[in-house]
């Protein structure tokens, strides 16, 4: 054990006994190579086995260990003790979600919002089945069979497809706190990702959710979501591109009420 130590203040909440969350302090050996996740594992193994938190991959891929570190939403596995040493590290669960226990939040509303934007490719056949009245022109000859896509077509949406559903952006967004019905940065960015996909024909099916008042119009471009995103998805850009598109569609709806169809 090294002589140096570091203090962690962790927001604790045990639903069986606590009326409200309170900070608990832990002093652990300081190890320059340790991530915050390593520190939490040390506490759980050596000091308090009741400490509850989510984690899986330890390499910023799974998106499980999102937490608020010194006021900033971050992945526990990507946060290192050496960046704070010798100062105390303050750890809280993600903001704007109900706390289930300690650092674990109830993410069920996020999953519902994610499902609402239909985060999968809706091909021409599926789109025709969903909307028989609408004339759907397959974007490529192959879209009824094998999907083919050029690197340029993929480049259009690739940035928005890097999302790992870690929900740091939901924790960063004050509009999320003010309006819990807001679909939120990640789900809207993922909806945008599929709308931009050349293989997809589901834009019309997503519009109702994306252009809703709880969709992109609940965003005021605070922009903090994009700052905290560990994958540089830039959800703020995705959302606000949809506002521009929505405004254009609204204006065109007066000029072309049948969308160019006869």
């Amino acid at each position, binding site marked *: 054990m090294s002589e140096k130590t570091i203090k962690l203040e962790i927001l604790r909440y045990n639903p069986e006994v606590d009326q409200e969350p309170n900070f608990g302090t832990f002093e652990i050996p300081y190890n320059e190579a340790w991530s915050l996740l390593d520190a939490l594992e040390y506490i759980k193994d050596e000091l308090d086995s009741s400490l509850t938190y989510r984690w899986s991959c330890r390499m910023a891929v799974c998106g499980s260990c999102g937490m608020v570190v010194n*006021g900033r939403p971050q992945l526990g596995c990507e946060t290192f003790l050496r960046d704070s040493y010798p100062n105390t590290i303050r750890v809280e669960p993600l903001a704007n979600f109900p706390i*289930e226990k300690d650092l674990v939040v109830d993410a069920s509303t996020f999953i519902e919002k994610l499902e609402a934007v239909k985060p999968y490719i809706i091909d021409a056949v599926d789109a025709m089945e969903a909307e028989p009245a609408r004339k759907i022109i397959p974007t490529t000859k192959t879209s009824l069979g094998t999907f083919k896509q050029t690197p340029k077509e993929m480049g*259009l949406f690739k940035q928005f497809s890097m999302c790992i559903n870690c929900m740091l952006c939901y924790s960063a967004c004050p509009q999320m706190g003010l309006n819990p019905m807001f679909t939120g940065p990640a789900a809207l960015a993922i909806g945008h990702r599929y709308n*931009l996909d050349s293989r997809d024909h589901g834009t019309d099916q997503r519009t109702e959710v994306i252009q809703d008042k709880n969709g992109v119009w609940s965003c*005021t471009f605070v922009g*903090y979501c994009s700052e905290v995103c560990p994958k540089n998805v*830039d959800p703020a850009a995705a959302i*606000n*591109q949809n*506002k521009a598109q929505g405004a254009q569609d609204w204006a065109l709806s007066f000029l072309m009420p049948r969308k160019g169809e006869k």
Partner: protein
Amino acid sequence: MSRRPYIRPMPANWFMEKPAYKFYMLREASCVFNLVYSLNLFAGLVQLVRGADAWNGWLAVQSNATMVVFAVITLAMTLLHAVTFINMAPRVSPQQLRKMIPDNIVRAVMFAGLAAVSAVIVGLAYMGAF
């Protein structure tokens, strides 16, 4: 074992929590200064229509120290508004366009446009056009 999720209340002064939120509020507040400045300018226009005395009265009010300070703050807020607007604008443009023109070039063109328009206005003011 029963669930009892705890929902933390959002404080009314949530925007004081983080520097990013404070900057956001400052950015949004810049429009208030522009609104008041525009209303004042409109009042000046009304006074101009009403005649020389009314116009000179409005001019006298503008040279008041409070109004000068207000004008300087409004200028600073307008610049903040312009800079944040220009920095955000390319991110809002359609993704197809973004892939053709890098964001930094769009920003550079917009800043150049802002500088050109400002230079023309300042130049005209120096030549006594106003």
